[in-house]
């Protein structure tokens, strides 16, 4: 009896999870619109590419901040690692972009795995400081090892063709944007799948209350380490894309402002539903483009003002309003299910 009851519940749960995991039409529209932008506006394709890469970077932060609730100010560490891994490969003659991308992500993932245990202890403040410290350490390391990284001069290199067919770079900026688009889409789909898997649900439980999640039998430490490594790999992929499509890397990849900017993007777009990073990146870079065209020196002022306004008005309320308005558009992992 209880077994039958159990399987019935499991069945309903399964059906519910499958229903939630389905792609909705607004999502299709979203991705088609992005693709159309790349093809229809060739004059701004470099900007579009920047948005796509930044979107992937923000997505990487969403995996730990939005899904798991871990605050990090050091995501730039993995961006820089991925970028330098891809750039060093290319400057040593291994110019295949796909290989560089995989290497960038792998190097960052290993670094994420190595530093993740630091996140398991202490308070949010400790985590902020540890992540920040790791990215600054790596930046200093890149600065000191000029023989490998080019030091303060950065690295210049040329890239091969994607899959041996499509040249990217200055001669093929549209190809570069399309390449970024494909990578972003594939990785996004994977993240979406991940967010709706039992693993993703466990992460949501950890975000809501780590102590209770542990009491439910979730191995919280293991999950946090795993998602941090995945997030690092995403950031590394973003870094590799950035390096490959701009064909330059420099030390500012490790800077504090990279980590802060990506957090702003995610917050502007809204954390926790995966599209937030992409939307936030688009808004952020678009805003920066518009404002800095008007006042090149002072655009940060307006970003700062926007941020303060967001916090004071209450991110939760804004998110709730936005979610009501767009309940069609956004699929919503975990949050709201219990309500």
């Amino acid at each position, binding site marked *: 009896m209880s077994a039958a009851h159990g399987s019935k519940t499991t069945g309903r749960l399964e059906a519910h999870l499958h229903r939630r995991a389905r792609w909705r039409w607004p999502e299709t529209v979203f991705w088609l619109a992005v693709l159309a932008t790349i093809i229809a506006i060739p004059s701004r394709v470099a900007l579009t590419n920047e948005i796509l890469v930044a979107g992937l970077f923000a997505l990487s932060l969403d995996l730990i*901040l939005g899904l798991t609730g871990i*605050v990090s*100010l050091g995501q730039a560490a993995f961006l820089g690692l991925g970028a330098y891994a891809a750039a060093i490969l290319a400057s040593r003659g291994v110019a295949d972009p796909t290989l560089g991308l995989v290497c960038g992500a792998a190097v960052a993932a290993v670094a994420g795995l190595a530093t993740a245990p*630091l996140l398991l*202890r*202490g*308070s*949010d*403040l*400790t985590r*902020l*400081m*540890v992540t*920040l*410290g*790791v990215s*600054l*350490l790596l930046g*200093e*390391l890149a*600065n*000191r090892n000029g023989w490998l990284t080019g030091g303060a001069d950065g690295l210049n290199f040329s890239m091969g063709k994607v899959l041996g067919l499509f040249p990217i770079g200055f001669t093929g900026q549209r190809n570069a944007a399309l390449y970024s688009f494909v990578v972003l889409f594939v990785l996004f789909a994977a993240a979406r799948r991940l967010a709706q898997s039992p693993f993703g649900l466990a992460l949501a439980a950890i975000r809501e209350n780590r102590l209770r999640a542990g009491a439910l039998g979730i191995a919280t430490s293991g999950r946090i380490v795993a998602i941090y490594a995945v997030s690092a790999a995403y950031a590394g992929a973003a870094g590799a894309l950035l390096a490959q499509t701009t064909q330059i890397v420099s030390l500012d990849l490790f800077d*504090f*402002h990279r980590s*802060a900017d990506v*957090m*702003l993007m995610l*917050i502007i777009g809204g954390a926790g539903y995966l599209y937030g990073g992409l939307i936030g990146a688009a808004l952020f870079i678009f805003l920066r483009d518009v404002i800095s065209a008007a006042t090149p*020196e*002072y*655009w*940060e*002022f307006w*970003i*700062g*003002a*926007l*941020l*303060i306004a*967001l*916090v*004071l008005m209450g*991110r939760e309320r804004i998110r709730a309003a936005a979610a009501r308005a767009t309940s069609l558009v956004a699929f919503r992992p975990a949050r709201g299910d219990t309500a």
Partner: protein
Amino acid sequence: MLTILFDGVAYGMLLFVLASGLSVTLGLMNFINLAHGVFAMVGGYVTALMMNRAGIPFLATLPAAFVVPAILGVALERTFYRRLYGARPLDQVLFTIGLVLMAMPIADFFLGDEPQQVNLPAWLSGSTTVYGVGISLYRLFIVTVCGVIAAALQIFLVKTRFGAQLRAAVDDARVADGLGINVDRIFAVAFAVGSGLAGLGGALAADVVGGIDPSFPVKFLVTFLIVVTIGGSNGILGALFGALLLGVLDVAGKYYVPSIGGFIIYGVMVVTLILRPQGLFARGDDR
């Protein structure tokens, strides 16, 4: 050797005054205030402008370098910060990053992006020799002033009624409130003193760091945070020892092993956080 040690101590003392306010807001009140450097920048600007534009002597500008940021601090505390005392760390981080992002262009807009120099008076430049150790007079001045401030703060916190009230308010704001302590006012005063000290530190540091410029709040943000993190979040003495340790290690490291000098403070911080997540000099209890 001793000269370097002394320079390190002076740098550490400077760090302490700069970060002591943060060790109150962040350490005691648990508010992640990434905008702390803004107050230091304001103090530095006050001194630099009063000296360069109005010709006021260095010493006479220091009180203003304390008071102006303190007033600014109270104004911001009353209007914005207090709403976020109970907020989640992420909101505090975002809000204070927003403040920093706004403060830098404002400074840039009114004062330009070139560093504002503080020219030391003649009696503070130059150096002297004590027992065969060469000591810069300004470093000596810094050590003296900062030492006095540290001692005063410690006595203030431990011995005075206000200090006791502050510690009570920090430990449990509701109970303190119930006991008739005006928690709101205590926090406002603590915030003002912290901001003022940051300003004073900025004024004293201007010469050492080569002038105050709009990027000051970001350039030293990390250093401040490291001081508080290493010192542990419990009071003045921890921050003092943390700052001295960092100052000496940083100066000595940059002198003896320049190839890795830049790593040292980050390395110290990461190792500290691994071994003692609550800070080197934290109280025993895991709060």
